[in-house]
């Protein structure tokens, strides 16, 4: 462990250390603090100024409003119905891209063939393609595939552009996975899928966490694809939040906006908080070994 050298005796050093740590905590927490504090104030307090101040009058009305009665379209539905839309899109998309990424990583490291490395390079380069560029051709393809304006279409799009990173994660992880285990399983008579399922997958926990966190965050937070490839009944959360926040005229209810924004971010926050402690372990186990 790299920690062994740290002497806890040097108390001035420790004070500086903790001061720095707390300082950075503040830096990272401030925006969330502002959002949270202002989501619990009545609008009049916000417009009166003092964005850093705690509410004089605490209220959860903005949260209730954002959840169930804020105006995000013709109907004042709040964000509630869009939550489900996002979930039924995100879960399959994350699952698919993770599983396929794992299979790809498995093939690329344990069953390599001529050109596998180049193929991987090409795959990785795909991560860098700007999404704005693919919008129109993607729309055309979805139309041709009959997936336009549907949840499966959205899932497909996120899956397609999620493969690059999920393959990267799993490939780097599996590269460090002992090939002898695969050979042993072959001699034991396990086939391609059985080896994957019984030998590699059970050991893939750490990297799966990294991959799922990454994919979940990216897909949940996507706006461009969500807006462009959804239908009136499949718009995801981010589109609704955008409609709430970006309304063109009328009074901007900042407290409701903030409440809605935090609400929309809750699932990803939850994923980070719950899975966060596996995250460093997962990164350690593979992806930063390069």
């Amino acid at each position, binding site marked *: 462990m790299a920690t062994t050298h740290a002497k806890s005796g040097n108390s001035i050093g420790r004070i500086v250390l903790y001061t720095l740590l707390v300082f950075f905590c503040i830096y990272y927490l401030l925006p969330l603090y502002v959002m949270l504090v202002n989501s619990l104030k009545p609008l009049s307090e916000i417009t009166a100024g003092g964005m850093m101040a705690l509410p004089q009058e605490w209220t959860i009305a903005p949260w209730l409003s954002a959840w169930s009665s804020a105006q995000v379209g013709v109907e004042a539905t709040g964000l509630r119905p869009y939550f489900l839309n996002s979930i039924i899109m995100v879960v399959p998309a994350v699952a698919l891209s993770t599983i396929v990424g794992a299979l790809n990583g498995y093939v690329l490291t344990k069953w390599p063939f001529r050109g596998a490395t180049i193929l991987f390079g090409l795959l990785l380069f795909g991560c860098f393609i700007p999404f704005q560029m693919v919008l129109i051709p993607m729309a055309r393809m979805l139309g041709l595939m009959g997936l336009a304006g549907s949840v499966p279409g959205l899932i497909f799009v996120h899956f397609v552009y999620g493969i690059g990173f999920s393959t990267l994660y799993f490939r780097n992880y599996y590269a460090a996975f002992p090939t*002898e285990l695969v*050979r042993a*399983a*072959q*001699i*034991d*008579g396990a086939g391609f899928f059985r080896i994957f399922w019984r*030998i590699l997958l059970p050991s893939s926990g750490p990297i799966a966490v990294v991959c799922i966190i990454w994919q979940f965050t990216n897909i949940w937070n996507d706006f461009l694809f969500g807006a462009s490839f959804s239908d009136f009944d499949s718009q995801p959360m981010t589109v609704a939040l955008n409609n709430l926040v970006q309304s063109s005229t009328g009074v901007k209810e900042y407290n409701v906006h903030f409440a809605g924004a935090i609400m929309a971010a809750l699932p990803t926050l939850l994923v980070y908080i719950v899975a966060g402690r596996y995250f460093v372990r997962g990164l350690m186990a593979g992806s930063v070994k390069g």
Partner: protein
Amino acid sequence: MGFLDIKQATKSYGAVQVLHETDISIEEGEFLVLVGPSGCGKSTLLNMIAGLENITSGEIAIRGKSMNGVKPADRNIAMVFQSYALYPNMTVSGNISFGMEMHGIEKSEREKRISQVSDLLQIKHLLDRKPGQLSGGQRQRVAMGRALVREPDVFLFDEPLSNLDAKLRVDMRTEIKKLHQKLGTTIVYVTHDQIEALTLSTRIAVMFGGYVQQLGTPKEIYDNPANMFVAGFMGSPSMNLFPAKVVSENGQSAAEVSLANGTKASIPFATEELASDVGRDIILGIRPEAITDRDGADRNSQAVHIVEAPVEVTEPAGSDTFVVSQIGGKDVTGRFRADVAVNAGDTFPFAFNMEKAVAFDPQSENRIA
């Protein structure tokens, strides 16, 4: 036709040939060791036997049946890996039964066999543990158990002892030998440790540079190395190899060598094989145990010759003392009795048992006598 036949097998990666035409044939119950330095092609050959690497050309057959294109699981082989390759997510019994499960063996039968094997290897108390909770020696046993339980035609061992500490390595070596004697199965065993090769095998293939340098019984390999590589690689301390010249002395052919003090000495050969080669430069090969002090010399030998040579270093090793002198510019080590009074700087009589000496051609490095 033997039990395991390797016929003209080669392996290439693209343009690079890593294994050249190789022929090995062994009988059922033999213990074949593939030995050589790393990169010699021994592991490649083992993987080819296992079916983990394809054969570029030639054929590998088990029980007379060609194995080309047969997948590893269908070759009826079992393999023990260097890292043991125990499945980290399964218990010991899970590891042992996995192969049987894959081959569709019934549960009751699997349990019976696990029980037998764990008795044999004394790992019964470990069956419910995960590999991560085992010591190196225990893992080794589990890995062997996993192989044994399959009751295969051929066992393949890929440097199975190299991850153990020295003491355990010796113990496990003995255990493997016992197991082989008890079960009589055919084994192909890869190692870079020549002592393991000599102690375990019934047959050794010494490999280097993608070629089998010599195939033979341990005694053949040790006593009659086919070339300088085999001579130098097998045995510890390794065989002394030093330049000499064939001369004729008193009608007898002899090896003339130069000593560190500038004088020359000639040592008669035990045979007249090189009688026609007078004047030829050769490399003389003679094992340390054939260079002794006068009293330690083999009394049965007809060809012990004394050379007075300056002593450079002495290395007491308990049971013996290794004494080093420079001959032909090379360090030549003799194995003297422990209680011989000899010190660095002395000129001391070295007894050469020329019956054990071999000669190599300096260019081809092949043995000529």
